[in-house]
């Protein structure tokens, strides 16, 4: 005769154990969890709302200002550099002398 799987015998016995106590909610549990859950839902939105738009505005202002101030300087430097590069190129000067 084939021996019955001990695991199956064991779980069959375990299933006969009486169900544990009722599903009563602990006193105040639902109220506390609901309050925490709602507070948690509000917090990220409030923080984001408070800081994100301001941060975006500041970032855009910095970007535009730095572009406006920096571009003429950068382009002027670039043209100066290109001229000085031409003048200071020793190889070009050497080749020109040949």
């Amino acid at each position, binding site marked *: 005769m084939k021996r019955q799987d001990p*695991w199956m015998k064991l779980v*069959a016995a375990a299933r006969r*154990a009486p169900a544990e106590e009722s*599903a009563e909610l602990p006193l105040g549990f639902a109220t506390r969890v609901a309050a925490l859950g709602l507070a948690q839902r509000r917090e990220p939105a409030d923080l984001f709302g408070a800081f994100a738009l301001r941060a975006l505005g500041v970032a855009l202002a910095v970007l535009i200002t730095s572009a406006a101030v920096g571009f003429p300087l950068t382009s002027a430097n670039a043209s100066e550099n290109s001229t000085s590069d031409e003048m200071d190129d020793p190889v070009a000067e050497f080749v020109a002398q040949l």
Partner: protein
Amino acid sequence: MDDQAPDYDALLDGVRRGDQVAARALVEVLHPLVRKIVRSHLPRRVAEEDLAQEVYLKMFSRLEQYRGEMPLPHWVSRIAVTTCIDHLRFQQRRPELRWADLSENEAEVLDAVLSSSDGEDATDAMAAKELVGRLLEQLSPADRTVITLLDLEQKSVAEIRELTGWGTSMIKVRAFRARRKLRKLFEQLERKERP
């Protein structure tokens, strides 16, 4: 009144508007389901109430992700199952189960199930439940979840799929692996440990 199915849409609308009464009602309505999952997958040294609270807080924080593609209880049950599995992962696995670690009642139950007789009716159901818990602690969290749902709670593979969101083949593979491990544990206890 209690026989009526809860109006989840109305409760969800209320929660989205920040209505405290709706949020509390949602917790109350879902509690039997969450409690059952948490209780059957509760790791050692974790309070049932704390774990249930974590499930509800996750539910509230992820509510915007719920699109109504499945019934709300299924969605919440998946959150509950994954929360339990996360906690079980953090739990250190118990050292190898030894006969000497068992209580007198557990040892009797183990002796009865290892014997070839069909005397399981005489075994102590509470001790059997304790012993099942000890054996399940030897499994990986996901395998433990599957075998608990399948063998202890006698859920079908389709029901487990709904509860966990795992595919059929994954559930079957986990169940196969878990049963193989349990069989080895029984063999080991019988050959090496049985007094």
